[in-house]
């Protein structure tokens, strides 16, 4: 047990109080939206603070009737799930393959890749957005699922840097043993190295999936009619400026949070540990 001076105890007390206040500001908006989502619109505008007199579940049911750009909530969920699964799957496989090659195979120029990947991570992609937008239009990829999926075939992103570390630390002895038994390069990767790196790969995949699920900008910019839940939610916020039905909006918002909070509840430790190592773009 560490002994603390009075001075230090006072500081801890002050910081604790600040932490509590900050935590309340983080939780309160969700709680407020939650209980207000059971009111009808008139009751909500009458008093935004009070608890609902009767708990109506109609908003939660009605939310499935809303639509943005002709896509309803279920459609948005479909798009979100499709993009999250496919984009994450593709990008993880690509980064795993690329980082495996760079970490375990020497060939002319292989050294450049690793440092290049690091430099590239630092360069903001904002500048080339015009050209990217033009490319999507020129190739007919604009507003297509294929275009969005094609965007995830890159092997040199954040995933590369994290997975490079995992593969670098794997013992090559297993591969040599397999080689003696006649296993080829593909067998070694898919049957030995990939399964061994799986814990690392899964945690990178979870982080990446959260990013895709929450992604607003890619769809807004390159495929506005393929409305995902994040894009749809913002669309609904804009709709509410004309027909203010806030309790309904709260219900939709809370529904959109269920998957992400479930994943966080299950993988909380993995997610937080890997964030402190790798970083997650918010």
């Amino acid at each position, binding site marked *: 047990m560490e002994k603390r001076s009075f001075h230090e105890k006072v500081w801890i007390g002050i910081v604790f109080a600040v*932490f509590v206040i900050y935590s309340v500001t983080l939780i309160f908006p969700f709680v407020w939206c939650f209980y207000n989502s059971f009111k009808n619109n008139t009751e909500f505008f009458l008093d935004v603070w009070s608890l609902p007199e009767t708990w109506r579940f109609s908003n939660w049911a009605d939310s499935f009737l809303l639509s943005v750009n002709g896509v309803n909530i279920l459609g948005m969920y479909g798009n979100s799930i499709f993009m999250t699964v496919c984009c994450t799957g593709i990008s993880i496989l690509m980064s795993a393959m690329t980082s495996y090659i760079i970490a375990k195979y020497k060939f002319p120029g292989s050294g450049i890749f690793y440092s290049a990947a690091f430099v590239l991570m630092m360069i903001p992609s904002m500048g*080339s957005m015009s050209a990217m937008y033009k490319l999507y239009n020129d190739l007919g990829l604009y507003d297509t699922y294929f275009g969005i999926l094609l965007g995830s075939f890159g092997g040199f992103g954040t995933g590369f840097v994290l997975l490079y570390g995992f593969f670098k630390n794997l013992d090559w002895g297993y591969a040599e043993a397999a080689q003696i038994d006649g296993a080829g390069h593909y067998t070694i990767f898919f049957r030995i190295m990939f399964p061994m790196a799986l814990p690392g790969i899964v945690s990178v995949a979870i982080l990446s999936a959260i990013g895709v699920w929450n992604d607003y900008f890619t769809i807004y910019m390159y495929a506005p009619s393929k409305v995902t839940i994040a894009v749809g939610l*913002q669309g609904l916020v804009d709709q509410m400026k004309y027909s203010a039905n806030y309790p309904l909006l709260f219900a939709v918002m809370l529904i959109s949070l269920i998957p992400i909070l479930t994943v966080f509840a299950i993988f909380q430790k993995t*997610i937080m540990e890997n964030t402190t190592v790798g970083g997650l773009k918010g």
Partner: protein
Amino acid sequence: MNAHRESAPSREGRADRKKAQWKRALFIFSFIAIPLLHFTLFFIYTNADTIFLSFQTFDNSTGGYKWVGFRNYTEFFTSFVQPYSILPKAVRNSIYFFLLNDFVILPLSFFAAFFLYKKMPLGNVFRILFFLPSIISVVVLTMLFSFMFDSSIGVFDSLLRSLGLGEHIPELGWFGDRRTAMPLLLVYCIWAGIGYNVVLLSGAMSRIPQEIIESGRLDGMSMSREMWSITLPLVGSTISTLLMMGVTVIFTLFMQPMLITNGGPSGETYTIALYIVNSIRSEGNLTMGATVGILCALVGTPIVILVRKILEKTFPIYEY
């Protein structure tokens, strides 16, 4: 099985080795061909085309792009110096966001992370709560924040009114008033951004070996001494990464103003990146977006390199 390794350089052995080398090369190629192609198209080509686009303009009569020399650049600078131009505001705000990140959020996060690391009661509960904004979509976070300060439903306003401070509420709402919109956006960035830094920094602190701190404690080291002389230098590399991310914010931050105010009122909350996005998406002016992108690269690259150099000097990496 492994004959080619031991056998003398017989003809068969050499052929075998050659075959193995081919197999190996083919394997390498098959694994990195797609990412390389992707990289060529989505990085090299788009960056080259950005340079081209900045010297071109869209020709409505032909439906293609034609060369116009430096016209986009002169257009940019003329509109920059025009009265009521949003561009100076965009540059100013982008710098505000950088200053906020590096000189407000980061010091506060370091301080908070240190206390969290020093066995704060309920530490793990705080850690999870602080992390929540990092996994929730920015759409949801900006939505909640605007609700709180909304003029018709906002709980902040009703709180002020019940305290008898109702007359301080701006007529056009907090996000509609030119004086309050930008400060409130900065508040949003603190609210939504600080938790991530705290979790990242306290994670880095927990990796500091316990022996170093214990030996210091035995010498009667105070907590503030520990914070400055041990913790700060030992998490230096994390801090310099975060400082670096704060610098790039100048050129990349746009989501928060786009979703909360969309640059309004009268351009008060524009940022450089939001200007690029809106040129492309709302005005269809790709060439202006590219021009601003090139200017950012010209100004930004030396800044980023310089800051990196300074950070490497200030926060040397300690191995432990």
